[in-house]
């Protein structure tokens, strides 16, 4: 019956149907269809809020009038805003640097632990990363508590002065960076460990035959082989750290005197607590061009190295 119907169709219609079937069978089409639910989810949960926040950023304070870029122009004239920019950069860059450094060193230690004991170490070292940061930061808050700091208790027991961990701007900045490093270093550790395991042993053997010492093996073999993974992890971590909210919010709420605010906490302060949603949206959007710039440079480097290879 179906064959009869097909036979009766005009040639053009049959051609169309065949090409449709071929289109549906193409790998790229199947891949697209399978990825469609994810694309739709991202569109709904990421793209829509992003465009909505751009829309909000163009409204006046009472959200009744379109003001274009006036909110950004206003922000750029505020001293506190530039202080937040500076703090966010200090926070993100120093935290990512130390996370990468600690992750790299610890990955080497773990890599050299005999295989039997390695799983235990890997599991233990991942603990900070698997605890929800709002919870672990609460524990850190108790350690830094203005009146009942456990660290201060120890310092005083050994005859040293108590440290105003969260009351002094410099110590408070140190505290938020420290907690971020503690939380994020295991991510670098696990990525670098995986990268280390994928470096072919023959390269080290060849280097050893050539008389390379430990440092030269690290510099000329390990690092070049890990360059892409380092770039990707740094980019990813930079994005996440720049957008950090929970650690600063729980530990200091941006204080003292706004000196630990980062973009997200400052946006929350302006948008939600001070009732100026458009200005809060502007602050949070300011991260976007900075991160986009960082992403372009880092990804371009990776692509170039890929092409060279």
């Amino acid at each position: 019956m179906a064959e009869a119907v097909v036979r009766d169709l005009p040639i053009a219609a049959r051609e169309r149907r065949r090409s449709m079937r071929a289109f549906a069978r193409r790998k790229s089409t199947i891949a697209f269809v399978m990825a469609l639910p994810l694309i739709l989810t991202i569109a709904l949960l990421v793209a829509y809020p992003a465009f909505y926040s751009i829309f909000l950023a163009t409204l006046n304070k009472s959200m009744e009038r379109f003001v274009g870029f006036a909110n950004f122009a206003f922000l750029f004239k505020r001293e506190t805003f530039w202080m937040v920019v500076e703090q966010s950069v200090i926070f993100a860059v120093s935290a990512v640097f130390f996370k990468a450094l600690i992750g790299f060193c610890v990955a080497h230690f773990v890599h050299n632990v005999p295989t039997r004991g390695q799983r235990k170490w890997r599991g233990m070292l991942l603990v900070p990363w698997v605890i929800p940061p709002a919870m672990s930061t609460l524990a850190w808050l108790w350690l830094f508590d203005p009146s009942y700091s456990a660290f201060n208790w120890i310092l005083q027991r050994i005859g040293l002065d108590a440290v105003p961990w969260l009351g002094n701007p410099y110590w408070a900045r140190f505290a938020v960076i420290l907690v971020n490093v503690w939380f994020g270093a295991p991510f670098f550790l696990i990525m670098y460990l995986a990268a280390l395991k994928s470096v072919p042993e023959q390269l080290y053997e060849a280097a050893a035959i050539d008389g390379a010492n430990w440092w030269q093996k690290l510099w000329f073999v390990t690092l070049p082989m890990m360059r892409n993974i380092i770039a990707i992890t740094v980019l990813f971590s930079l994005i996440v750290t720049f957008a950090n909210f929970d650690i600063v919010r729980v530990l200091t709420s941006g204080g003292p005197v706004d000196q630990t605010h980062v973009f997200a906490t400052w946006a929350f302060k302006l948008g939600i607590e001070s009732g100026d949603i458009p200005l809060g949206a502007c602050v949070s959007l300011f991260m976007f061009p900075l991160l986009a710039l960082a992403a372009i440079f880092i990804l371009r480097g990776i692509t170039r190295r890929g092409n060279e290879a």
Partner: protein
Amino acid sequence: MTSTKFSRRRFLVASAAAVAAPYIRTSHAAGKLSVGFWDHWVPGANNVLTKLCNDWAAKERVDLTIDYITSQGNKLLLTGTAEAQARSGHDVLTLPTWYASAQAKNLEPMDDIVKPLIAENGNVVAVTEYLGKQDGHWVAVPATPGSQVKGPCARIDLFKKHVGLDLTKMYPAGAPADKALTDRWTWDNFLLAAEKCFKAGYPFGLGLGETTDSVDWVGSLFAAYGAELVDAKGNITVKSDATRQALEYAKRLVPFLPPDVFAWDDASNNKWLIAGKGALIMNPPSAWAVAKRDNPKVAEQLWTFPAPRGPKGRYTPGLPFFWGIWKFANNKSAGKSLLTYLSHRAVVEQLVAASGGYDIPSFSGLRDFKIWAEEGPPKGTLYHYPPRGDETVWIAMSPAPTAIAMQMYAQATNTKMIAKITQGGESIDKAIAWAASELEGFMRA
């Protein structure tokens, strides 16, 4: 093929049912009502409110749902903002302090129920009117749960021993305040008391962070010296002798406070008092209530009373809460009926009792409940907690227009000025200039 026969009789029955349907009272004839209340921190307080609401719902035949929303992590605030943006959510929502005025354009006018309530329960304090009335109209109903004042809560024994002042004599339980003693209860003598307690090893626990407890007591201090950062017309008035005086006072007080007060949040002062480390904090009696459980010996020595007086008067910090009905609510009439019911004297008394005396009704005629005279130990500790003397209930940053004041309050402009001149080592002039620049930023429309 089957055919459905629609007889004349069936048509008449169906028509009659359709016409009569709106007039048949089912168990939920007055429709559905969705309410978002503030999640009270006092155990059991929510249960009493739920029971009262359910009694009302059964009588009014309303299908009522109640959500208790915590203020921890600003969840209540986020809920309000999200519902206003989505124009969907609860019909009735608790709006803490500044958020009734902030959401005024999204809220149903409430003149028709607040005015009769004022006639029934007495006037509301000025701060409630300042926050709840916008452009001459009530935008929300003053709520009992959550409304509080933040006078000093101090140690009777330490004040007697180190300051030589009997707090129970100055503000006796069940009787008016002693005029001679309260006349001497000034910010100048407060400073002397702070110094004596500091030297005795029990510093006053007054935060200078960016949360409400810190901003509120500094707001009272500024008001007592007549220091307005922005006036009622929206003019920046921070550059004044009054501000300078208040800051000079703060500069003298800060050395007698714990060194880490710049990092304190709203829990820090409570912990300070409950642990027995300090002689005074400025807070609602939540610290006393927790001390009853965690450190009864300290609780037995606590007394709550009004703030000291300054050159321009005695100002006790007050934070009223409100109940608002969204303009987009589905059942406004049921919402108004519920809020009216919850504001009647007999109901308010039950709510205050359920909160252990923590909640302070905004209506002046509702400040004589026996709970405040009876609570203890020590008995009468809360008698002078509800404002009933010469004090003015005040919110920091008033009388600036609320849209500006809310930003000043959220960004703690007053405590930051003190932090700058003390911890930061800046001059008073520089701190005032900084504040003026910040305030200019808050003026944008």
